[in-house]
């Protein structure tokens, strides 16, 4: 069957190759997983079951249930973000749909979209599908993978129309402070850039609280904040996310949403509402456990000579492996059965690094890092 050029020409995800290599073996410890190893809090699951039992299987309002939008708006006050649940919140099928809607709403054909890299793999293809032109803005290990006005300037982002910002970051675990975001915000204001801020990992920070560019002066009106329940509440398979932003932009996003998804899954919305109402303690416990694993993994990598900066958020470490990261990851999988994802898959700035997810049990992390140490020792 003839397929559309834009679909045919989309590159295959670099992750797919490693997925297939890892799937071919049955003895693999995978540190390549971009989702929590916890299950969604029981109260949230139980609420979803209760909803099904009561027959709550109909569509909801396009924008999501009023209760959930109110709960989302209230929840975001913890990040000093204030949004009207009636007009400035849109519930979506995963944060991925929110990102896609934001691109399709904000990008006209030929618009240039600056994406700091290394970063989540879906942004550039999403921009292309929206008719835009992705512009890679590499960040550096030397800056702890923070985005700076200098990096934006050097990449030519002053000419861009939109900036995609993802902190805490997948794959680096990097976070940005209010002070650092203030500099990026100034660049955006000076050059009239709008922003899509993917803050899906906002609940998973270690030490410092999450900072959002949307709270910088003059940025709320030019920023779509994307978030969701997948990472903080371990609800990846329930596919529930949302977007926060100015009413006119959210209204435009909702117009696309109503013709494509109609509404996010009702059962997932019920689970999400309960998660916001009663599952803070579970999130805290998960964050504490990730934090212990984070410290162990970073400490072990540094001890074995793989330089690793201290990630401030998400659940990834991003050690330097030196040289060809793809070859390193393949050889490691072949020799020791440990799956990691090469940093170059995530774009410029990721070369020579590995994405290591510590969303796996402490026992497996210890075994996997022991195997990596053995791999390095035998390679030398």
């Amino acid at each position, binding site marked *: 069957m003839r397929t559309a050029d834009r679909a045919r020409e989309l590159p295959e995800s670099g992750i797919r190759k490693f*997925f297939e290599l*890892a799937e071919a073996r049955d003895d693999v410890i995978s540190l*390549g997983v*971009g989702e929590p190893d916890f299950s969604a809090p029981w109260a949230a699951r139980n609420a979803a079951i209760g909803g099904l039992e009561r027959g709550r299987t109909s569509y909801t309002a396009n924008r999501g249930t009023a209760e959930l939008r109110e709960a989302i708006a209230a929840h975001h006050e913890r990040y000093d973000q204030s949004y009207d649940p009636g007009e400035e919140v849109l519930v979506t099928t995963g944060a991925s749909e929110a990102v896609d809607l934001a691109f399709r709403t904000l990008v006209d054909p030929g618009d240039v979209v600056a994406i700091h890299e290394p970063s989540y793999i879906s942004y550039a293809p999403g921009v292309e599908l929206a008719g835009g032109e992705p512009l890679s803005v590499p960040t550096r290990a030397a800056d702890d993978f923070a985005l700076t006005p200098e990096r934006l300037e050097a990449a030519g982002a002053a000419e861009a129309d939109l900036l995609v910002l993802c902190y805490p970051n997948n794959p680096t675990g990097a976070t940005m402070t209010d002070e650092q975001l203030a500099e990026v915000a100034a660049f955006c204001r000076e050059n009239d850039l709008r922003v899509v801020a993917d803050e899906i990992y906002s609940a998973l920070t270690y030490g410092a609280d999450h900072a959002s560019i949307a709270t910088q002066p003059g940025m709320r009106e030019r920023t779509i904040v994307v978030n969701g329940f997948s990472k903080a509440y371990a609800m990846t398979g329930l596919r529930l996310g949302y977007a926060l932003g100015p009413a006119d932009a959210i209204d435009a996003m909702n117009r696309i949403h109503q013709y494509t998804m109609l509404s996010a899954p009702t059962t997932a919305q019920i689970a999400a509402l309960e998660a916001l109402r009663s599952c803070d303690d579970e999130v805290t416990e998960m964050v504490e456990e990730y934090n212990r694993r984070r410290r162990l993994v970073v400490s*072990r990598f540094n001890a074995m000579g793989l330089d690793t900066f201290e990630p401030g958020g998400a659940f990834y470490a991003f050690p330097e492996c030196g040289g060809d990261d793809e070859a390193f990851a393949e050889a490691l999988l072949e020799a020791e059965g440990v799956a990691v994802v090469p940093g170059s898959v995530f774009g410029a700035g990721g070369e020579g690094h590995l994405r290591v997810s510590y969303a796996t049990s402490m026992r497996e992390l210890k075994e996997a890092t022991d195997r990596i140490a053995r791999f390095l020792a035998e390679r030398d």
Partner: protein
Amino acid sequence: MEAEREVLDVLARNAREDIEDIAAQTGLDAERVEEAIASLEADGVVHGYQAVVDWDRTEEGKIRAIVEINVELDRETGYEQVADRIAKFPAVDALHLVSGDYDFAVEVLGGSMNDVSRFISEQVAPMPEVTQTVTHYIMETYKDGGVRFADGDDDDRLSVSP
């Protein structure tokens, strides 16, 4: 106390963690971890280190029972004195004073149901303060010490994902 608390969180999950790994997980140096453990032990916060055992998987097995005990106290004898006597029996694995319909909840370990029954009827029931015992034999243990007794760790996530 923050350091002690962090060390305690790690030990409560796995008492066999070595000092270096505890240091890595807590961000403390090894010397501070050792100090914290010594302090936790000296203060009686940590009383000991035990394995969480699924006795049903051992060859000889063990019978566990939860025994409710009611007591009648007098001017000379309080809960502490009764508890002290009961706790001395090696068969008593755990002993709690509880609120509700009875006074003590006792976990008893024995080689057989007969062992446990004999212990209760010959050693505990005859104590002058004990007015009633109710024994519940544990048929199956699904979770103990915070550890779920199940086959393996099911992980249905994709091995590599974005």
